[in-house]
């Protein structure tokens, strides 16, 4: 399961929302959700996050009418909710896991939201191939490729060392050596390897053989 990047961004934005003024809504697309992951339910999920503090009257009334909300209903409610908030962030994880037919509609709906409230910020993640679809709706979307960084390994190793069961056996020199050797080994293994192929390499037993050398 992915979602690491999105969850970090969501947490960072939520931390700031405590200082007031920000509202953060999110959605993790997931093949496994199946038929419930419709465009209507996806926009509804975003709206839920924005109104759960205080449900607006228009939503209450629509609910009391007793029929299922349509996409048009939800977009209207979203526009009202967003307009009433100073700054809204919408984060959607794994766009490639939304049904192919729903993707254009989802991006089109986000585009409508931004057109109406230009301060709205949209954070998206997905496999590289969805970039083309995104740029059809948001020509100037900024793309950041996510691949493992040396700093990530460093942080992870430090975290593992901090959890060491035998702290008495550890000292700064040993810590430094462990970190240095691991980073060197990782660099040897993955120089010039695109992250795309990393998964295949790792499942091929390459790590084990490289460690035993």
């Amino acid at each position, binding site marked *: 399961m992915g979602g690491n990047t999105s969850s970090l961004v969501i947490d960072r934005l939520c931390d700031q929302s405590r200082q007031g003024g920000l509202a953060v809504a999110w959605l993790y697309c997931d093949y496994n959700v199946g038929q419930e992951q419709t465009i209507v339910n996806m926009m509804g999920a975003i709206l839920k996050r924005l109104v759960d*503090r205080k449900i607006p009257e228009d939503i209450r009334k629509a609910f009391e009418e007793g029929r299922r909300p349509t996409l048009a209903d939800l977009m209207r409610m979203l526009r009202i909710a967003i307009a009433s908030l100073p700054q809204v962030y919408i984060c959607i994880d794994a766009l490639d896991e939304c049904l192919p037919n729903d993707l254009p509609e989802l991006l089109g709906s986000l585009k409508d939201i931004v057109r109406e409230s230009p301060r709205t910020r949209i954070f998206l993640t997905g496999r590289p191939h969805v970039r083309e679809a995104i740029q059809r709706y948001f020509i100037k979307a900024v793309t950041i490729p996510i691949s493992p960084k040396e700093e990530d390994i460093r942080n992870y190793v430090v975290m593992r060392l901090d959890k060491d069961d035998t702290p008495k056996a550890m000292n700064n020199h040993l810590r430094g050596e462990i970190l240095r050797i691991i980073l060197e080994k990782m660099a040897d293994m993955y120089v010039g390897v695109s992250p795309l192929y990393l998964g295949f390499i790792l499942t091929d037993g390459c790590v084990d053989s490289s460690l035993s050398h």
Partner: protein
Amino acid sequence: MANATYAQTITFGDNNVNCGNTIWSYKTIYNSDDDAKIMHWLSPLLPDNRHHSVRTNRFEGVGDWLLETSEFQEWRSGEGGADQAVLFCSGDPGVGKTYLRSVAGFF
């Protein structure tokens, strides 16, 4: 099935004084049964649950560099208007974790 999942996250009829904080809390507590029903009516999807489980399994400190990039900071500032509304992080899911699991093999 949908109802069962629904019940996990929503506490009915709890007049919790902290409910004003729910915009950033992960367990949403509604003021009344009606509020909970309205939320379910808006969408049966439960993004809060998913977020909670993703962050529980997250490797702490990994990926933090993104938050420090100028692209992220500019996007977050909201100054750019509609043109700069979207930030897209592209990658193959799980690659970072697979990579770190291989680091874990060193321990």
